[in-house]
Every structure is written in structure tokens, then in C-alpha cells.
């Protein structure tokens, strides 16, 4: 299983959990599994076409998936997947 780090704005979908463990061999599969356990979360991460939204980034370990294989990036057991949204607050 891989561990997905859930950013604060999306924890309302995971009952407040910061980390969720899912099965999946690619980012696409991992996100699908995450959506099953946290319905509604995928729409915040991906657009209508299924692509990762441009203000969100996903890392497998330290690697930006845009430098790997995007949604087909391989995820192995024990990998840490980070969903990182652009945060704009500051006031």
C-alpha cells in the first residue's frame, strides 16, 4: 500500500485524516482508490478530463509526477504520495 499525504483543505473528505493508505500501482489508480474511500475528493484534485488541476501538484516521494509519467507514474508499496495545492493565504 502507498501512503497519501492529504493537504489540510482536503481533509474534510478523509474525516480529518492527514494520511490515507491505498492500493494502486499508478497515480491514476491511487487517486481512484482514494476517491472510493473519500468520495468527492478527486474532483478537487483533477478536472473534468481527469487531468491533475494546474494549481495542484502531486509528488511520489521527492519526484514531481510531471517529471515522471503524470497519472501513469508508478507507485510502489511503501511510497509516499503528496498532494500539494497552491496555498494563497497570508493575511
Amino acid at each position, binding site marked *: 500500500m502507498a501512503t497519501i*499525504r492529504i*493537504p*489540510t*483543505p482536503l481533509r474534510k473528505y478523509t474525516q480529518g485524516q*492527514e494520511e490515507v493508505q491505498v492500493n494502486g500501482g499508478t497515480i491514476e489508480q491511487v487517486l481512484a482508490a482514494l476517491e472510493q474511500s473519500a468520495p468527492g475528493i478527486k474532483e*478537487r484534485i483533477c478536472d473534468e478530463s481527469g487531468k491533475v*488541476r*494546474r*494549481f*495542484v*501538484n502531486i*509528488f511520489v516521494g*521527492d519526484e*514531481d509526477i*510531471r*517529471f515522471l509519467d503524470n497519472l501513469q507514474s508508478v507507485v510502489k508499496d511503501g511510497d509516499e504520495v*503528496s498532494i*500539494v*495545492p*497552491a*496555498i*494563497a*493565504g*497570508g*493575511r
Partner: protein
Amino acid sequence: MTGGGHYLVIGAGGLGCPALLGLLAAGAEAITIVDHDVVETHNLQRQILYTVGDVGMAKVEAAAVRLRARAPHLKITPRRVKVDADSLGPLLAELPPHTIVLECSDGPGLKFLVQDACLARQIPLVVGGAQRWRGQAQAVVRGQACLRCVFEEPPPPDLQEPCSAVGVIGAAVGLLGYLMAHLAVSLRAGAAVAGRVWAIDTRTLTPQELQPRPRAGCPACGGPAD
């Protein structure tokens, strides 16, 4: 490592207040503070430069008073300006050489706008943001991953979540503001801090460091240095 030199701090709110104190503590010689807002009571929870007596006062003026009281030698230039596409260019054009910018506003689009403008002028900057329990910051210089290398664009207005709507914990902006000041001082000292994304979740006390790569063809920074 001392902070010497001039800094431009855009936003004198939750991030800007601790960032200003961090720059002062690090030995900054001159700071220009830019914000158009006034102090309000609900700011006081996290905008640590202000007091009840400052309510109604322009933030840049109140911040200048507080900083001068701590460091009379520090040259402070308060600028009560709403930073946008029209005002940003002239603001950056009048900066002294070797200025480092700290983007501490809460406008998603503004963060990208400021970054892009600074990169075009080869002005080093630190961009930070904090909401709810989490904050993240990134020092940006040409040749290293920039904000658009990591997040191609800001969220659209209907998906933006301002702090006024979702809240922000004081510890998150406090930590991030001081971190932004430290990153700015580190940039001036030539430390290799640019490009990485530093984040912390203050609810779980979980820090995170990401090392994104410059994205080929990035419209802001041009991608990897040759």
C-alpha cells in the same frame, strides 16, 4: 549570517508581520512595506505587529511605527498601495539594486503576478502562503524551480479559499513568516535554498520539504538553466 540590504515586503498581514520581525532580527538595513489595508480587530489574533490602538490605522503606518520603536536605525518606507498589474511594475522599477522581495499577500493571482514580474527583472523573492493549519514557502531565483514549475497557475476564483472564509491558525502564519524572512536572508547570503518548497502542518507538526525541478518551457522562469 546577517540580513543587511533592502527588502520589499508585499503584504503586512499574517505572514508579513512575522516576516518583518524576522528581517529586523536578522539585521535588515532597509525595508519597504506595501499594503493598502487598515488594521481591523479580527486581524489581531495573528497579525502580531498590531494592537487594539492601531485599529483603523493603515497597516503600513502601524507596522512602521512598531518596527522603528524596536530598531530606530532601520530605514522603513511604508507604501500604502494596492498591488496589482498596474502598480507592480512601477513599484519594482524603483527598488534599489539587490533588493529581495517577500510576497506575503493573500491573493492567489497576485503571488503568481509578483513572482513572474520579479523573475523577469531577475529580482530574487520568497513566496509564501498559509491557510487553516498549513503553510508553505519557496525561495525563487532564475535557474531553480519557480512557483509555476510547481503550480502552473493559481486556482480559479470559484475554487479559491481566502483566509477570511476558511481561517488560518496563528502558529501557521507565524512559523511561515519567520521562515520566509530566514529564506530571504539566506538568499542574500548565497545559501542554496532556492527552488525547494518548505511546508509545515501545524496541526500534526509535520514538516515537509519538496525538491521540484525546473519545468522545461516554464513561462515564468524559462525552465532549467543551461
